[in-house]
């Protein structure tokens, strides 16, 4: 394509808009001044030390990490078999079922969080952890259905049928033939689900209990009371983790796996 200067300039402005706010946060994380200021007055790591001295951030990180993994595993456990069943053409009401499995995306997160709080926490009086787990399961399930579903659409089922005629049992054929062929889809679904669970706020906001806060809700709480670069330091750590994840995904699956 021939270069179009105006279009290039326009795109540069848009990328600047996307990139600068996060860059500014990164810079303020190393600033010595206690209130966020720019340009920075001196270089320090003390806000990072503060992050590791703040208990709610550490326990929040632990909770968010564990929650994201367990919720995603549960979603894979029930989501992969369902996506597999739906990928077979013979299923009646396929479209309806699929949109039912994707329905948590239609219901706004804030409503999911609120209704779970009312029903699970207040009415059934389940422990906070179980409520959070259920909420995050709903957050990640659509990613599993969508991404694993599209991986299965690419899969040539005649290979599976061949395994059957060669004497493989149905279960054996699934684990030995189908699953290895859709493994990259499953990994992509895991990554997307993990990131979205880890970043979720509206659902966690309602389901957090005394002393049980995910990292994003702990951050949100912190911002409401304090205004110092500790939040910037947390942001830098999380952004570094995001970059690491993106790098690994790019090297293994290609970054396109995260844009589905």
């Amino acid at each position, binding site marked *: 394509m021939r270069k179009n200067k105006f279009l290039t300039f326009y795109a540069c402005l848009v990328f600047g808009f996307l990139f600068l706010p996060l860059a500014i946060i990164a810079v303020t994380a190393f600033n010595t001044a206690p209130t966020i200021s720019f340009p920075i007055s001196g270089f320090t790591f003390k806000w990072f030390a503060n992050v590791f001295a703040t208990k709610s951030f550490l326990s929040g990180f632990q909770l968010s990490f564990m929650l994201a993994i367990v919720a995603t595993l549960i979603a894979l456990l029930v989501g992969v078999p369902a996506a597999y069943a739906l990928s077979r053409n013979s299923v009646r009401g396929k479209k309806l079922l699929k949109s039912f499995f994707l329905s948590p995306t239609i*219901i706004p997160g804030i409503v999911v969080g609120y209704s779970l709080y009312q029903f699970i926490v207040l009415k059934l009086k389940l422990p906070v952890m179980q409520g959070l787990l259920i909420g995050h399961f709903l957050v990640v399930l659509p990613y599993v259905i969508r991404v694993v579903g599209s991986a299965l659409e690419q899969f040539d089922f005649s290979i599976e049928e061949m395994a059957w005629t060669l004497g493989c049992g149905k279960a054996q054929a699934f684990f030995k033939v189908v699953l290895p062929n859709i493994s990259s889809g499953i990994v992509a679904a895991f990554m997307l689900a993990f990131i979205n669970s880890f970043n979720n706020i509206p659902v966690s906001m309602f389901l957090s209990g005394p002393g049980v806060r995910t990292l994003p809700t702990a951050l949100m709480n912190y911002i409401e009371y304090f205004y110092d670069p500790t939040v910037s330091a947390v942001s830098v750590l999380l952004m570094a983790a995001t970059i690491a994840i993106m790098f690994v995904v790019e090297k293994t699956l290609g970054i396109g796996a995260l844009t589905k």
Partner: protein
Amino acid sequence: MKKQSTILLIAPITILLVVVLILPLLAVLLPTVFEGGAVTLSRYIAFFQDPYYIKIFVRTLRIALVCTLVCMILGIPTAYFISRVSKKWRGILMSVALFPMLTNSVIRAFAWINILGKNGIVNQILSALHLVDQPLSMLYTEFSVLVGTIYLFLPLMIITLVGVMENIDNDMMEAAESLGASRLLSFVKVILPMSIPGIITGAVLVFTGAMTAYTTPQLLGGPKNMLLSTLIYQRAMTLNDWTGASVVALVMIVTTLIVMKGLNAIAGRLDKRGEN
């Protein structure tokens, strides 16, 4: 596949969804349409007669609409640019667009607190240039919610659009140009019409996302600029007004569905017209 095994594979997810999604939703939403054993819409009529609620409802729609339009204005040319560069550059630019989307929304809102606040970067620059005597109050206004929401959803718009535009053949553009169309004209006449389904998909995602986002209006709006989402939280958690929160929740769900169905119907009609 046998019917039995299909049922066996689908049963766990279906039961789980009914128990943890459908039941809680019904338990919360159904009581809002009953009063003394009879079905009534009185609570919803009351909602749309209360000027305070109408204001919040209209503000939510206005922010979602303006956000969607701005995301289209900024996103369409940018996505077009990304879809036409070399494959290597496309990967890099897609990563740059994707990165903010994978970053926590608290962080993204926090960035704008630093930029728009009283001691924020914009005010520091303005006062250093002696353009203002008093720092401008930009934070905790509808403007800051809007900027934060655009920042939240622009990457989604760009990524959705690139997905559609990169499949449009470069030859199409070249054919139009060789037939004498200017580059802008061939973009408007060739690329844009072919991208409309993608643009509508992106618009649906951005509009519904902006309508229901919670973190950004909570952190950048303050109590004076409540949206439906922050209203649900306030009704439920601060005021313990469960019925009120549930009414807002259903209003939000129904509005989202109407917008989704409406825009998708337009997309379907445009698709049909294209086939003829």
